[in-house]
């Protein structure tokens, strides 16, 4: 573990300051109905409304390239909601409103000119519960490339699928049964299949919402190893309930509490010398 952290440290230093995504003053409201209006006015308006749930309150986060950023915090603190802000998955929830500014490589992703569908191809997502489509393993991985027309012919597609499966460290287990249904794999394999599926569209950022919460320790170890591996190409954001996991895999950690971002900084610092008393209480197990 110590080695890993040291290694992370050096890697992170090499990649430092290459900003991938930036969030400034992000608020998220649930139950906002079909309300529209100017962003600034609406945020104040919604915050005052008792019937609206104010899930995220003015969060600022910087996500660096080729870095694993972990979001930790107790249940219901808004870390998953914030993760879904980053690829506009909240758009699919009725009555959800996001205000503030989120940029991907300097471009505002909530700008009306941005197509959320295109955005999600660049910001891939892996979910808490493995959710392979009821298709073959091959078709699961080929799904993204097919929709986005990333391959020019069959051989090319097969190549993308193989590369993605290799990158997700599952190729050796499934290479002989690519036609078997993805739902027939074990939980850990399913989750790695889902990671392969997300990687297949060559995203720039990979969002992972508690990817190990339904896995056993062995599968968790495999996925964690994989996350560390993925860092060489992507910027990874991971939501986790396990503080050990955050400490193991991430270089940056953000601690959320009751919809507020309490503390954001280097993982080492958060876990060894937190500046906020709430962070300290949480990581030592007193609140949560």
């Amino acid at each position, binding site marked *: 573990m110590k080695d890993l952290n040291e290694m992370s440290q050096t890697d992170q230093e090499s990649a430092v300051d290459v900003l991938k995504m930036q969030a400034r003053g992000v608020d998220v409201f649930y139950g906002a109905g079909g309300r529209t209006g100017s962003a600034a006015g609406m945020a104040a308006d919604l915050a005052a409304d008792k019937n609206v749930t104010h899930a995220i309150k003015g969060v600022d986060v910087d996500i660096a390239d080729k870095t694993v950023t972990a979001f930790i915090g107790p249940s219901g603190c808004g870390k998953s909601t914030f993760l879904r802000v980053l*690829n506009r*998955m909240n758009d*699919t929830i*009725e009555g959800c409103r996001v205000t503030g500014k989120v940029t991907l490589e300097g471009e505002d992703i909530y700008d009306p000119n941005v197509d959320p*569908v*295109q*955005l*999600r*191809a*660049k910001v*891939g*997502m*892996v*979910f808490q*519960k493995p*959710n*392979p*489509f*009821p*298709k073959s393993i091959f078709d699961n991985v080929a*799904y*993204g490339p097919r*929709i*986005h027309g990333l391959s020019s012919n069959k051989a090319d597609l097969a190549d993308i699928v193989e590369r993605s499966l290799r990158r997700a460290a599952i190729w050796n287990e499934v290479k002989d049964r690519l036609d078997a249904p993805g*739902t027939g794999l074990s939980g850990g394999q399913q989750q790695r299949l*889902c990671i392969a*599926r*997300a990687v297949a*569209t060559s995203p720039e950022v990979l969002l992972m919402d508690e990817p190990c919460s339904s896995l056993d320790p062995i599968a968790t170890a495999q996925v964690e190893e994989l996350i560390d591996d993925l860092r060489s190409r992507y910027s990874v954001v991971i939501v986790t309930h396990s503080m050990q996991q955050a400490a193991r895999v991430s270089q940056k950690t953000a601690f959320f509490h009751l919809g507020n971002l309490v503390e954001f900084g280097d993982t080492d610092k958060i876990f060894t010398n937190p500046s906020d008393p709430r962070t300290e209480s949480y990581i030592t197990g007193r609140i949560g």
Partner: protein
Amino acid sequence: MLSILTAIVVLGGLGFFLGRQRAIASAGGDARILHSLPVYYGTNVALLTVVPAVLVLGVWLIVQPMVIAGAAIDLIPEQGVTQAGSRDLVMSDVRRLADGINTGVERGAFTAAEAASLDTATTDIRAVLADVGVALGTDVEPAILAAAQRSRQMSDTASTWMQVIVLGLAVAGLTYAWLRTNKDLRARNTVERAILGLLITASTLAILTTVGIVLSMVWESANFFQLYRWQDFFFGLEWRPSFEGGSELGLIPLLWGTIYISLIALLVAVPIGLFAAIYMAEYASRRVRSVAKPLIEVLAGIPTIVYGLFALITVGPLLRDYFAAPLGLGTSSSSVMTAGIVMGIMLIPFVSSLSDDIINAVPQSLRDGSYGLGATQSETVKQVVLPAALPGIVGAILLAASRAIGETMIVVLGAGAAARLDLNPFEAMTTVTVKIVGQLTGDTDFSSPEALVAFALGLTLFAITLCLNIFALVIVRKYREQYE
């Protein structure tokens, strides 16, 4: 009959209170010591009082007429039976006479003693009974009278015995259960078993009814096939029944009409219903959904005869005037197309409602997964949701198909009653169900092939829809295994 049932129920109620009381008393008034709640002890006693008594009563009521009929028929000379045609006919005479005499006694035509000593030689029984409003078909023969008298006498005795035995059983059950009631009796478990028994009985009855329906159809169909060659029925291309004999009863034209009309109905219902379901499940906001879904389901509540009227007075003439006549395809307002379209409209809510439920059952995580990969909504529906829901949707379509095959009223009013083998969809045709009704309504002789063919048609139809339903069930079951 009614009085004896009332008595049993009253005894059961009494047992309930006695059992409850005894249980509480055995616990010294503290219900917490009891193994079960007091109400279970009461129910336990009531059950033991009512259930055996009612079961015996039921069996008795079935067996008694059989035994009496067996004894009464012995009094009729052999030639009397052959003369009347069959045993059943004689027995129905005997029964009618016995009932008539009973009614006569009730209405004061003669006293009970006179009734017992009636004689065909001295009394014109038919005239006397006619005076009190009981009509007999023929003059009473001595043998029939004797049989009727014996059956009256036997049923009197049997009724008395029945009352004694059934009530005795109820009282015995009550006493036994009451005596056994104490604080350690596991009354709750007994009641649980009784409920299990009730549930099993209900499901068995449902299955037995199906078996009974099939058997009665098979029986009558077997009679039909003794009178009519099965090759001619299954492969005959002509449907020309005539009650003077020499009918041609070929299944093919009717089956063709059924399949043709059902096919058109499904061509209308499946796309519209499925697209409506997709809109409802995937695109519509909650408010639209809460209004539109019940509106679509109103269609399912319209009686089919009303759809038939719609076909007859609106769709039929419309199709004839604007499509069939200009295209030179016919001048009939009854047509396969009319019935098919209207039936399709009827089936829309079937397809949409079932498909909607099935699409909603597809886990949200699959949609999230697809959106998370940058798929649009329609790509997600087409490539993830529909394939996942497909087995269930096929099941829904097959259920709609078996509904279409069994439909009668819309066909009668929309497509007419002429059996015809034709490809022209603007021509009148008819279906199996319509012909079943046609062959059995009016003055029919139930021993002629022209009437019995209805049962063979019914059996064929049943076999077809059964196969479709089984197919649908198999597919739906396969679908259920998918996300476990």
